[in-house]
């Protein structure tokens, strides 16, 4: 392997690393969007909540002699609770009385609330999270692949497949699909719409906890605002992949990770320095725009063009 190729593969992996975190977060967006057509702007902040729980519980868990990643359990519990509370206290009343725009603003307001609430409780400063995994890198000659990157990717894939199977084949999964398509008809089938939506939020928030674990493993630091940009990127990933589609979220997340990494690495060389790696965010969005213009419902999205 030449150095060039090793460099390229490492770039791919660093793209996969952040990409698989985006993918995990995007899965949460997609689940919630799929069922109530709401961009849950607070989803990124659920991850922040999960991260704080990790930060607080890991030392105790390690002290008890358990591996640090066991902290995922309290993280999931807290995130699920927060998710369900947000849904019941804010989204549900607005969904029943308002329109999609009101719901969106409520989600933004919830996001602000969580961010500022966290700041009031924990302060604005960054705090580090103890090391979660102690995985060795896997080396292929000169190429070194970090263990937790591989773990994030594998975990992302497993969750994606699991979710897909859950939604396709279990009763609850089918109920989710039914509710997402037609709430009235779903009721007539005997589906409890509210508990199905709550379940979806629970799953989405649980995924946020998992995402926060993987995120903190890769980027071991928490702050009240950490969810904002992460959430946005992951949401873009979900849209790129086709929002509402589970494999789409995965593909979108990884695609954005790769695009980011590869533009950072090569855009300067390709454009002779005219466009630098500082443009990577712009390029991610530009790609999103191009994809949406060509395929308005994202890579995996089904075209929901109205039949006239």
């Amino acid at each position, binding site marked *: 392997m030449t*150095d060039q190729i090793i*460099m390229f593969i*490492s*770039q791919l992996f*660093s*793209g996969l*690393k*952040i990409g698989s975190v985006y993918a995990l977060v995007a899965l949460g967006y997609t689940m919630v969007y799929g069922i109530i057509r709401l961009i849950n702007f607070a989803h990124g902040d659920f991850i922040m909540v999960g991260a704080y729980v990790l930060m607080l519980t890991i030392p105790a868990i390690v002290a008890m002699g358990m591996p640090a990643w066991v902290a995922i359990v309290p993280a999931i519990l807290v995130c699920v609770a927060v998710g369900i509370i947000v849904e019941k206290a804010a989204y549900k009343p607005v969904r029943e009385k308002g329109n999609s725009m009101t719901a969106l603003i409520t989600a933004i307001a919830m996001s602000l609330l969580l961010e*500022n609430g966290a*700041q009031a409780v924990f*302060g*604005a*400063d*960054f*705090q*580090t*999270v103890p*090391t979660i995994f102690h995985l060795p*890198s896997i080396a292929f000659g000169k190429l*070194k692949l*970090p263990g937790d990157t591989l773990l994030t990717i594998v975990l992302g894939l497993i969750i994606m497949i699991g979710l897909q199977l859950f939604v396709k084949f279990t009763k609850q999964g089918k109920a989710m699909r039914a509710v997402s398509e037609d709430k009235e008809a779903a009721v007539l089938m005997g589906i409890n719409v509210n508990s199905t939506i709550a379940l979806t939020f629970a799953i989405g928030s649980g995924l946020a906890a998992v995402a926060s674990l993987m995120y903190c493993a*890769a*980027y*071991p*630091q928490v*702050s*009240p*605002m950490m969810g*904002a*940009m*992460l959430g946005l990127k992951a949401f873009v990933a979900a849209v790129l992949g086709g929002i509402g589609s589970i494999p789409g979220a995965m593909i979108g997340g990884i695609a954005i990770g790769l695009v*980011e*990494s*590869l533009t*950072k*690495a090569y855009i*300067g060389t390709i454009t002779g320095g005219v466009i*630098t*790696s*500082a*443009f*990577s*965010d*712009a390029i991610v969005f530009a790609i999103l725009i191009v994809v949406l213009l060509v395929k308005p419902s994202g890579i995996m999205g089904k075209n929901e063009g109205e039949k006239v």
Partner: protein
Amino acid sequence: GCSGGSMDDSSSSSSAASGDTITIGSVTTNSGTAAAYGEAEVKGFELAVSEINAKGGINGKKVKLESLDDKGDATEASNAYNKLAADNNVLAVAGPTISATTAAVAPLADQTKLVTIAPAATSDSIETGNYLFRTCFKDSYQGEVAARFAAENLKVKKVAVLYGTGDPYSSGVGEAFAKAAEKLGMQVVDKESSSSADDTEYSAQLQKIQASGAELLYAPYYYSVAGPYIIPQARSVGFEGYVMGPDGYDGLKLTGDKSQYDKTFYTTHYSADDTSNTKVQDFIKSYKAKNNADPNTFAALGYDTIYMIKQAIEKAGKSATREDVRNAVAGMSFEGVTGKFTMDKSGSPTKSVIVLELKDGKPVYNTTVQPK
């Protein structure tokens, strides 16, 4: 006429503060992404104010701190600033926190003739010297010092720079370093940038830097980015050379293996190990007592800022007007926890720079670079 509609009314009276308290205003970023810096500054302000009051205040008057948040937003900052300026009891303002809001406040300071000292707004692009001053040194200066240190003390030949374009501070220091490095005969083998100064993933750029054969990476980012992201990621792509940073590294957040932070240096305003400066130890002790945490640079700068204001008001005298206070700040000599300096004509202090080295994760005093 339309004069009343003009925003530049200098009608605000500049009479002396009456009553038996002196109000010092502050505009800092206490919410939003940069809130951590503002919070630290405010803690510094508060410590200084409580110390001053405990010792009898300024000119026998108690000091009141009126602290406002600007969310890191220019409009909010100018509204907050105007609110302070409209209050005749406010004799001086400490803040704003970041360069972006400071730039918005600069013309207002001149207009309302209210002396304003920014503790940490380091950007060169801010027009200081009239009514706006700063406690910190400038980005360009700090970049130059770092380059000098790299060339003279570390004796490296090939350097690489990585900075965030979204942030005037990061890009300002980075560009200054690169320029100075070339002037000093070093070779800038790679110059990389990120979309913003708070990205989390830098591996792509770092791999290129690693491949470029640089012996030293100059990465002007904040402690919250350099500590958990840049340095570990640089090490994990195999970069084993020196890492250098600016004062933003103060309070660096460490993660994982501490040894990966070896060979990291940064320039800053003060050092806890600096035994030559007696004020430092006292400051650290009382800060810890009050806040149950170690102070960082921004707290130290904030602390000094209030003492600068105190010194100026004292010099201006009991019946000082805003102009008087301003005149006292201009050209003042000051000795604080962040060093000993004289305010230069352009409103920035000429200050010694301290270089710290991380050893086993702890900042250890390396050297002091005196201003030329």
